[in-house]
Structures are given as C-alpha cells and as structure tokens.
C-alpha cells in the first residue's frame, strides 16, 4: 500500500481532450471517488494510473516512484472494468488465481490455493469456485471482480463503475460490502462513478470531474455543503439544488456580484402565506422515502423536501425564506 500521486496529467485522443491538467493525490488506505457524468474522463484517468494509456504531459507516481515508463504489469495496481470484469473462459477459481500466476508474480500453487480460499471466504462464494465465471449472476460476478482486485493487496485498486450494471437493491448491498472489505484490508482505492449516492457513502474524499478537469476535491461533507461552483452543487443532493436567478428576489440584501442563489431544502423555509403571494404549491410528489414539494414562483420551479404530514396542499400560496443559501456569480463560481 502506498500513496498515488497524479500531477498535471493531460491526455487527448486526437482533438478530444479527455483529461486536462489533473492533479490528485490518493493517500495510503484512502478511498477516493471520482464523480462525474459519462464522458467526463473518469475511465481515462483510471487507465492513465494503470499505464493502459500514456499521458501527453504530467506524471503519475505510486509510492513515490515515477511510473511513466512502467508497463501495466510492472505497476502494482489492479483494475475492475466497467463491463468485462471476469474472464469468461475461466472458472471462478482460475479468475482469482490468474493475476497470482502471472509471470511477474509466479506464486506457488499451494500459496494461490490459500489466498483464493481466503478471498472466497471473505466474499462468501466458496461453493462457486468451480463454476465458469459466466454462470455467476451479475451481483456475484461483481463481488468476485472486486475481491479479485483487492486480494492481491495492490498499491492501489482502480474500480470503474463496478456497480453500475446492477439493480438498485444489489447496488446498495454491494456498496456496504465493498466499504467493509476496503476498511478490513485498509485498501487504497480510486473508485469511479456517476452515482452521487455511491460517492457520498463510499468516499473518504470525492473528486468532482467535469470535461476532464478536476473541479473540486474534498470530503463528501465539504463537497456537499461547500461546493466551489454550480456544477459541483448540482452533482450532489436529492432533490437537486434549486438555482434561482437573483432577480426573482429583489428584496434580498446580497453582495453585488451574486447572480444566482443556490437553495437546497435545508436553506429554505416554506410557510403558508396570504393570498397575495406569487409562489404556489404546484404538486406534492410522494416517492415513498421522500416527499417532494414542487412550487412555482414566477415561472420558476422550486423543489424542496417536506414532511409526509405537511399541512400544505396543492394550490396553496406560500412564502419562501432563505437561511444562508449558496451564492454564485455570473460565471457560476461561489461567492463567499
């Protein structure tokens, strides 16, 4: 286990810049999540760390050793690919043994047997070792893939949206299991996802990536409570943050350069008001675990959470009060 450091790494494919000037340090034993939409450059970043791509500029170091000239095999990393996580022509046992049998490791078979046994116990798949990888269910496959990436005790494990192909229930189960295994092993991980819940629950730190650029890095709380710009603010929180033009609230005393008010549920108090108010309850959406209050205010939609037993009804006039909302300037940057 060791620290992994990317410094000013850039990578383009033809005219398309996939990763731009990205610097990030993953500390020993830390789980860093890269959060961003499809096409943001997350996979490319992982491939750069693994040595499957060579950066156009910048450096990648693992454990203080520069890796630019090291082949993927020579780097002490593991990779869980988004889709093709296990070798389909091998049994589960052989899949787990495959990296251990490689020419750079040449682990003796009894040792392999012991290690694979340990992983199987950790993943509770002892009875599946003889199966072909393709006979596993999607969830079992991803469990094995994740276990495979961690048992080798790499300097860093790289995981590319390993849960994205699973259904919601399995995803939340595996999320918890992944966190448990990572903590048990003290593994260092760079984990990529576009799912904010995964990012919030798994990460020691979140890096938010947008069009190849790392926009903000911080603990889940920092990134949620103190976003650097509107892009980061909209990536986290459900329901999503309301970005409201300042002109909608001419009475508020705000710094001059504020152009947008960012308000989440916790920044707003919604009260029933006299008939003269402009804001009206449009719709109350019951999602089971959450209730969303949809308000229309001068053609601007505002969404907030409400208690299930709220007294508000559709058509009610309401007044909205802000408590320390997030403020952004014309370019979308935070005004503090």
């Amino acid at each position, binding site marked *: 286990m060791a620290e992994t450091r990317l410094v000013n790494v850039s990578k383009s494919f033809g005219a398309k810049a996939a990763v731009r000037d990205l610097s990030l340090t993953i500390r020993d034993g830390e789980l860093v999540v890269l959060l961003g939409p499809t096409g943001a450059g997350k996979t490319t970043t992982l*491939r750069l760390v*693994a*040595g*499957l791509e060579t950066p156009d500029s910048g450096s990648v170091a693992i454990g203080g050793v520069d890796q630019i000239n090291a*082949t*993927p*095999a020579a*780097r002490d*990393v*593991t*990779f869980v*690919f988004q*889709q*093709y996580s296990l*070798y*389909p*022509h091998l049994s589960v046992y052989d899949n787990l043994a*495959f*990296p251990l049998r*490689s*020419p*750079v*490791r040449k682990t003796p078979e009894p040792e392999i047997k012991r290690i694979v046994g340990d992983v199987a116990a950790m993943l509770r798949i002892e009875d599946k070792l003889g199966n*072909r990888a*393709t*006979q596993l269910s999607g969830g079992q496959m991803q469990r094995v893939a994740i276990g495979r990436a961690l048992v080798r005790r790499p300097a860093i494990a790289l995981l590319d949206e390993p849960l994205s192909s699973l259904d919601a229930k399995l995803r939340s189960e595996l999320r918890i299991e992944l966190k448990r295994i990572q903590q048990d092993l003290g593994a260092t991980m760079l984990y990529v996802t576009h799912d904010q819940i995964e990012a919030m629950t798994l990460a020691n730190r979140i890096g938010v990536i947008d069009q190849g650029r790392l926009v903000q890095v911080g603990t889940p709380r920092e990134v949620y409570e103190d976003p650097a710009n509107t892009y980061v603010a909209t990536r986290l929180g459900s329901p999503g943050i309301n970005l409201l033009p300042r002109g909608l609230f001419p009475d508020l005393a705000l710094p001059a350069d504020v152009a947008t008010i960012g308000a989440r549920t916790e920044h707003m108090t919604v009260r029933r008001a006299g008939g003269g108010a402009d804001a009206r309850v449009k719709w109350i959406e019951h999602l089971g675990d959450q209730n969303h209050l949809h308000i229309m205010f001068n053609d601007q939609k505002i969404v907030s959470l409400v208690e299930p037993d709220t007294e508000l009804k559709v058509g009610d006039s309401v007044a909205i009060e802000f408590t320390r909302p997030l403020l952004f300037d014309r370019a979308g940057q935070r005004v503090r």
Partner: protein
Amino acid sequence: MTGLVSAHSVVDPSPLTKRIAAIVVIAYALITLVPLLWIVMTGFKSPSDAIAYPPKLVAEPTLEGYCNLFTTRSRQAPEYMAKLPPASGLCDRISRDRNMVIAGPSNYIPRYVNSLVIAFGSTALSVVLGTLAAYAFSRFKVPLKDDLMFFILSTRMMPPIAVAIPIYLMYRELGLSDTKLGMILLYTSVNISLAVWLLKGFMDEIPREYEDAAMVDGYTRLQAFFKVVLPQATTGIVATAIFCLIFAWNEYAFAVLLTSGTAQTAPPFIPIIIGEGGQDWPAVAAGTTLFLIPIVVFTVLLRKHLLRGITFGAVRK
C-alpha cells in the same frame, strides 16, 4: 453460457411447427444423402452389379472394390495361374477368380497421405497466419488498414483457377511443381483471405478490456493474446479451420495441373482408377468413400464449435 443463449431465443415454436420442421429436415437429409449412400453401396458391389441395369438396390456384398483400390494386378495365362501356390488372403483369392495376380500395392495410400499432409498443413498455416493477421488488424493502428483488408479480399474476387497458367509457369521456375510444399503454399494463399476476414470478425467481438485486464494482472500483450484472446477465439478458429480444410481437401483443378507424381493428392488420383483395366466403378466408389472420412470425422469432432461459429457470433455475447 446456456442461460445467455436462451435469453436470445424467440418464442418457443409450437409442436406442430416443430414437427413440420423435422419432416422438412429429414426429407432434405434423405435427398442429399442418397448419392452418398449410393457411393458407399457401390464400393461393396462387384463390377457387374455396379453397372447392372436396372440398377440393383441389393447386391451380394464383396470387398473386390477395396482390393482393387489398394492393389495393382496383372492378367496371366491359365498355365501360369495353375502353377501358383494356393492363394493367400482374401484379395489374392478375388483376383485369381478373375484370372489376375496381385502385382503390388496401388498408389492410393501414398496419394491419400499426400492429401492429408497438404490439406491439414495448409489449413494449419492459413489459420495460424490468419489468426495473427486478424488480431493485428483488429487491435492495432495498421497504416492503410482498410486498403489492406480490401486487397486481401480482392485476391478472392476471381476464381483462383483463372491464374492457373501463371502459377504453373512460376511453379516450374521455382521448382515447386509436384511438391507438397508447393501445394501447401498454394492452398494457403487461397485460404488466407477467408481466414483473415472470418477471424477479424471474431476478434472484433472480443472486448479489448480482457487484454487490458490481463496486462494489469501482470502479463505482456503476447501472453495476454495466448491466455485470454485465443481461448475466446476458439469458436472462430475452428469454424475457419473447417472451411479451409474442406477447400484444400476437395481441390481438384490445381491438383490436376500441378501434381502428377510424388505430390499428387487423392482427388486427381481417384478418377485415374477408372481407366485401369476396364471401368472399375466399385474401386472408384471405395476410394471416394474412404476420401470422405477425414472431413466427416473432423467436422463431427468439432461440430459444437462449428454450429456456434457459422452463426458468426450472432448468439455468442
């Protein structure tokens, strides 16, 4: 794998549809198998039964055709025959009944061995070269890739025999006429385009991520090719090998033109049997029957792969 395959199946056909399909398949199989059956049966008839009119469906079986296939015989005067020691063995007796004695083995076995060496040799070479070329075309930035692929395909745009004369002259100059090496190279050059094109399709279907994974797991690209790509390409390789083998095994025109002696294959040899001592149809039929066996065995052994192979990856995913 089975789970995934069934996920692709459309609605199960009704029992009636299945029955009709079975009848059609059986009828078609009978129609196509009758000539084969006739050949196999003719191999066990006597020469007169073989050409009897109306044709004999049932005839007394004899091994005369097979004896004649494997031997050369000479006609002798009755006085000479009378002085011979008693016949030893079945074929000896059969030929004495026709006033002949066995002069020696025929060329059938050496020609058959030539066919085996040339067909399997060129198939192996086509598949090995084709696999490597297809992998390179599938994975690497090859300059002028599309043009090269088209060029490879264009070598099959006319019947190969159209260039028979230039090849004949070239082979004479190079000393490749009537050599096994020459025939292996020739059949390989014809088959290689098919092999590259078929196999490139199969290689494209194998996600690169598996090789990436193997390289991260501590293997070189070459090792990843052998450990991860080849096992997943087996289906395609087997299907390609069968196509190549069938062509090389059955090829007649070049074999007639370029081989006459030491490298002659079975297809040009079998018709020659007709001419030796009357129209010996049972011997021809016997030679043909034995000639069919390798392809049948090869195909049956590998049929599981072939079935999936000729759907060209439509099922496999």
